[in-house]
């Protein structure tokens, strides 16, 4: 009997792979092993509508729990794989079970960075945000009037700040760099979100270094900054990025470098093993990158299913992202890595604007704030490989739709 395709990690990439595999009618059996108790679910709402209590848990599920068995997929949720034995083509789980594979998919995701224990990272009341379990642990603490300290001004921190303000918490946000979103966006986008959050009463401290968290009997009670100032806090959320879960791959000798290195069909250095999503590292325009996004996880998972079904496809999907904060919708198309110039275009509605990133004369990305037209047309324009001039983009008299043709 042919061994199944074994999928390690049950997130977005795994669900997209399984959906496409089933849709293509591929008869090879699937075995899905995930270390969380839930079936694959959407993570983006965790720091948005799920955190604010507007969405029930089941509505996060990408497919209903029973879908997997209905499709003949064997699942082991709440089960962790501890080793891959490549020469025997099998994986081993924590409880000692081994499963043989025909092909193996690593969809192991990423893990949030924590603050070192030496500065209070392990105290009660200090959280990171990645899983349903994280939100469930944190949710009872989200009570009006409580003081939340957020460490890190990236998307997770900013989205959580927005939810916390809506729920009536007092929020202070620390960013070590000169500005929030420094790693991912132009200063103009940072300015937009700084204004947005300040307008909603978030105390944003940029260029601010945390010296350490303060405790009382093991419970966090505040933080001390590098300049000696002390800030009170009832709880702390750490949003300082994530690292790829590549330990399993490293242990069995697959090429890894900031993630599991894959080629343009998401194949690792072992031709029987593929990797998709946050844990994969791939070349895009000659540059080695790793993306933490639904788009990348879904598209890579989908692509592997096509590859295993015999389709001749290559991964070159255009990245896109979104973030919801208060009533603002940020939508991003493309990647701004290596940009040399930006162009600001006012939106058609008040409060709307878009930032267009150029690398020399090539348009590479757009951040659209409350401006879905800029996002949609930006995506079309960049996907089509068109490069309208910065002057055209800046000119609101020029219809974006005309540039997308």
């Amino acid at each position, binding site marked *: 009997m042919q061994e199944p395709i074994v999928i390690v990690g049950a997130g977005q990439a795994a669900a997209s792979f399984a959906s496409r595999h089933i849709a293509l009618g591929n008869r090879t059996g699937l075995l899905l092993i995930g270390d969380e108790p839930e079936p694959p679910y959407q993570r*983006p709402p965790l720091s948005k509508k799920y955190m604010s209590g507007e969405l029930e848990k089941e509505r996060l599920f990408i497919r*209903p729990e029973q879908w997997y068995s209905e499709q003949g997929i064997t699942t082991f949720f709440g089960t962790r794989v501890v080793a891959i034995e490549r020469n025997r083509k099998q994986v081993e789980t924590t409880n000692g079970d081994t499963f043989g594979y025909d092909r193996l998919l690593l969809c192991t995701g990423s893990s949030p960075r924590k603050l070192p224990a030496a500065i209070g990272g392990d105290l009660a009341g200090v959280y990171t945000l990645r899983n349903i379990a994280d939100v469930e642990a944190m949710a009872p603490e989200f009570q009006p009037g409580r003081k939340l300290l957020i460490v890190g001004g990236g998307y997770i921190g900013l989205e959580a700040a927005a939810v916390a303000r809506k729920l009536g918490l007092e929020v202070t946000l620390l960013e070590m760099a000169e500005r929030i979103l420094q790693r991912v966006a132009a200063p103009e986008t940072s300015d937009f979100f700084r204004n947005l959050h300040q307008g909603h009463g978030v105390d944003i401290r940029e260029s601010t270094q945390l010296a350490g968290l303060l405790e009382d009997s093991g419970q966090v009670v505040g933080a001390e900054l590098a300049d000696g100032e002390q800030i009170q806090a009832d709880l702390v959320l750490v949003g300082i990025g994530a690292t790829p879960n590549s330990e399993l791959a490293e242990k069995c000798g697959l090429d890894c470098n900031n993630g599991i290195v894959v080629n343009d069909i998401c194949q690792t250095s072992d031709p029987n093993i593929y990797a998709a999503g946050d844990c994969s590292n791939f070349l895009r325009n000659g540059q080695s990158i790793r993306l933490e996004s639904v788009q990348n996880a*879904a598209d890579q998972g989908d692509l592997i299913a096509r590859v295993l079904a015999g389709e001749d496809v290559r991964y070159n999907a255009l990245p896109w992202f*979104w973030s919801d904060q208060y009533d603002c919708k940020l939508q991003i198309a493309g990647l701004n890595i290596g940009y040399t110039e930006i162009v600001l275009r006012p939106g058609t509605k008040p409060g709307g604007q878009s930032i267009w990133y150029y690398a020399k004369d090539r348009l590479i990305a757009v951040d659209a704030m409350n401006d*879905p037209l800029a996002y949609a047309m930006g*995506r079309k324009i960049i996907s089509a490989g068109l490069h309208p001039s910065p002057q055209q983009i800046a000119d609101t008299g020029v219809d974006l739709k005309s540039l997308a043709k």
Partner: protein
Amino acid sequence: MAKITWKTEDGNEICVDVKDGLNLMEAATANNVPHIEGECGGCLSCATCHVFVDETWFSKTGEIDDIEDTMLEMTDVEREHNSRLSCQIIASPELDGLILYVPEPE
């Protein structure tokens, strides 16, 4: 509750009772309707839940707001006058009997 029917280009029909309040992208992915992906979870960023609404039902599915109208420009199969993003159609008793046609991308 509303009985919703999805018809695909290969002639298949998927007919399901959908609980009030669920959007029809969620209902479609839960019931294995092909070509409905809903990658963004219904937040109007991906345009992967495009459907054509049966003419007689179109007006009952609600207004298309500006954002949906814009995102309909990005669908894989080009929009038509009866196009909707199904994440924006919410099941209710008024939609009992609704028929949706699922476009099949190339």
